C-alpha cells in the first residue's frame, strides 16, 4: 500500500478520563502508554485489529504552553469531532447513554447509507458513531 494513516490526534483536556471512555465505553485497546515526564505522555489506542491509531493528545502535553488555554477552550466549546464506525450502533449508543454520556443525536437512518448517532466524549469532542445500513437483498 503506497499510503496509509497511522495516527490521528484527538485533543483531550484530561487523558485519564479520555482513556477510560474510549477503552471501557467503546472498546478501544491501548497500543502504547509511555509516560515521558510531566510534559508528555505518548498514549495511543486502536480498534481491535485496526492498524490505525488514535493518539490521545492531552492539550497540556501536545500544545505549546502559550497556546494551551486557547486549545483547551476550543476543545471544550465542542467544535472538534471524531468519526468512528461500530457493529451495533443502537447497543453502543444505549450503553453510552446508560453510562451518563452527553447525547447530541439519537440514532437515525441517514439517506447516504448509514445509521448514525452522536455524543460528547469527556473532553467535549463531538463523537459521531455510525453503522452501515444493511443492503437490501
Amino acid at each position, binding site marked *: 500500500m503506497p499510503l496509509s494513516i497511522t495516527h490521528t490526534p484527538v485533543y483531550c483536556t484530561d487523558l485519564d478520563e479520555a482513556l477510560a471512555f474510549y477503552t471501557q465505553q467503546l472498546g478501544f485497546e491501548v497500543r502504547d502508554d509511555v509516560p515521558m515526564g510531566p510534559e508528555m505522555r505518548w498514549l495511543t489506542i486502536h480498534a481491535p485489529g485496526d492498524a490505525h491509531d488514535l493518539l490521545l493528545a492531552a492539550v497540556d502535553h501536545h500544545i505549546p504552553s502559550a497556546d494551551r488555554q486557547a486549545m483547551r*477552550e476550543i476543545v*471544550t*466549546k465542542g467544535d472538534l469531532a471524531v468519526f468512528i464506525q461500530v457493529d451495533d450502533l443502537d447497543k453502543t449508543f444505549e450503553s453510552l447513554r446508560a453510562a451518563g454520556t452527553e447525547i*447530541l443525536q439519537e440514532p437515525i437512518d441517514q439517506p*447516504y447509507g448509514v445509521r448514525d448517532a452522536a455524543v460528547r466524549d469527556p473532553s467535549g469532542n463531538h463523537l459521531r458513531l455510525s453503522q452501515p445500513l444493511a443492503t437490501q437483498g
Partner: protein
Amino acid sequence: MYGPRVEVAELAHLRRARDLLDREYARPLNVPAMARAALMSPSLFARRFREAYGDTPYGYLQARRVERAMALLRRGDMSVTDVCLAVGFTSLGSFSSTFTRLVGEPPSVYKARDHSRLTRVPPCMTRAWARPRWVAQPCRIGEAFLADRA
C-alpha cells in the same frame, strides 16, 4: 471573541446549552430554559454565550432552525409551510423573513436550487458549513462556489 474571564468549566456549561439548542430547536425554547441548561442566570448566560459562540442564544437558535429548514428544503419533498412548522417557527411570515435575512433568498427559491452536490457530505458537516453566519458568506454562495469548481 470571548474574554479571559470565561473559564473552561463555564465553557462546558455553555456547550451543553448549545447542544440543547442544536438538539431541541423545534421546541419553543426560551432564554431562561437555555440558561438553566448552562447553570447560569439568563442575563449572565446571554452574555457568556455571545462571548463564546459569537451570537446571542436566540440568534443562534434562529440560525439553527433556518439551517435545519435548508436541509429539509433540499430534500424537495416537503412544502415550505411544512418545513416552517417542522423546525419550530410558528408563523410562515417570520419564517420567510428570517430565512431570507440569513440565507439571502426566500425558502421557495432556495428549495428550487440544484443541491445534488451536497449528497455525499455527512449532514453534520453540511450543517456546520451551511449554518447561516457560521462562515462569513451565506451558504448559497458556498453552493455556487462548488458549482464553479465542477
